[in-house]
């Protein structure tokens, strides 16, 4: 499991004005963060998580005020995040209040790094197989040369 605190810290690092600018992705993040956000799939949802972590939760209205999208769009994105389990909601008057589920967030990070490490393992196997074949054909050639 990736340690969650690093992820949460890097998110918080990017909660300045840049994160609220609709024309730019949030500032520098680690590639692990990037992969996680890609799996989540959408820059608006990424900013929502960012804001939720920074403000320790929020509603569609409070989040909508900080983003260049409508409250309805925010509510829809929150619904997507809710279904993936990345946020949890609770009743807060007439609205729902959302918070990041840090355990799920940590799991998502860990799973993405698992996909990466699976490829790492496959590539090492590719290397071993190819090098074994190369050595085999080299020694065949050598034996052939010696028998001449």
């Amino acid at each position, binding site marked *: 499991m990736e340690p969650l605190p690093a992820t949460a810290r890097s998110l918080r690092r990017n909660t300045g004005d840049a994160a609220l600018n609709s024309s730019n992705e949030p500032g520098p993040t*680690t*590639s*692990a963060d*990037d*992969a996680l*956000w*890609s*799996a*989540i*799939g*959408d820059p608006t949802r990424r900013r929502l998580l960012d804001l939720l972590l920074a403000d320790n939760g929020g509603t569609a209205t409070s989040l909508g005020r900080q983003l260049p999208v409508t409250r309805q769009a925010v509510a829809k994105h929150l619904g997507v995040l809710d*279904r*993936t*389990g*990345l946020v949890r909601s609770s009743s807060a008057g007439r609205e729902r209040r959302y918070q990041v589920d840090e355990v*799920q967030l940590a*799991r*998502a990070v860990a*799973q*993405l790094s*698992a*996909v*990466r490490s*699976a*490829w*790492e*393992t*496959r*590539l*090492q*196997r*590719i*290397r*071993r*197989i*190819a*090098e*074994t*074949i*190369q*050595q*085999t*054909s080299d*020694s*065949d050639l050598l034996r052939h040369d010696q028998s001449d």
Partner: protein
Amino acid sequence: MDDAEPGTIERELYIEAAPEIVFDVVSKPEHLKEWWPDDAKYEPTPGSTGEIVFGDPTTDGAAVAFTVVESVAPQTFSFRWTHPSGEVAAEGNSLLVTFELTPRDGGTLLRMTETGFRQMGWEIAVLEQQYQEHIQGWNHFLPRLAPYVATLETRR
């Protein structure tokens, strides 16, 4: 861990074998199933569609669609996988894996990229399932790796 763009897994490694050999290993079904799935059924030609099999599909394993996109020996081999069977592989319904081979110092620099995670909009449940399938594939495969390498070595 320095991937070029979001939604891409990118790896590079040096192999002490000629590009022709590495190309065979990454593209031919008989080799593919020695480093990844338990079985691989496809023709290694562009447009060919088949499947790769993890575990026993009749019990808890899975057959996954596999379509060859590009095959230029010994430079490039790419394929799409994980599209729903019966659907044509395209951006948005599958992951694209590309192997690029460059001759280097008598060996081969192999670069692998896997893209499509963003386009597929993968959510956590799917990722987890995929991860479990990967683990299962490796569990089936690992015990067979050593004997396979041994057979290659005894041919020396």
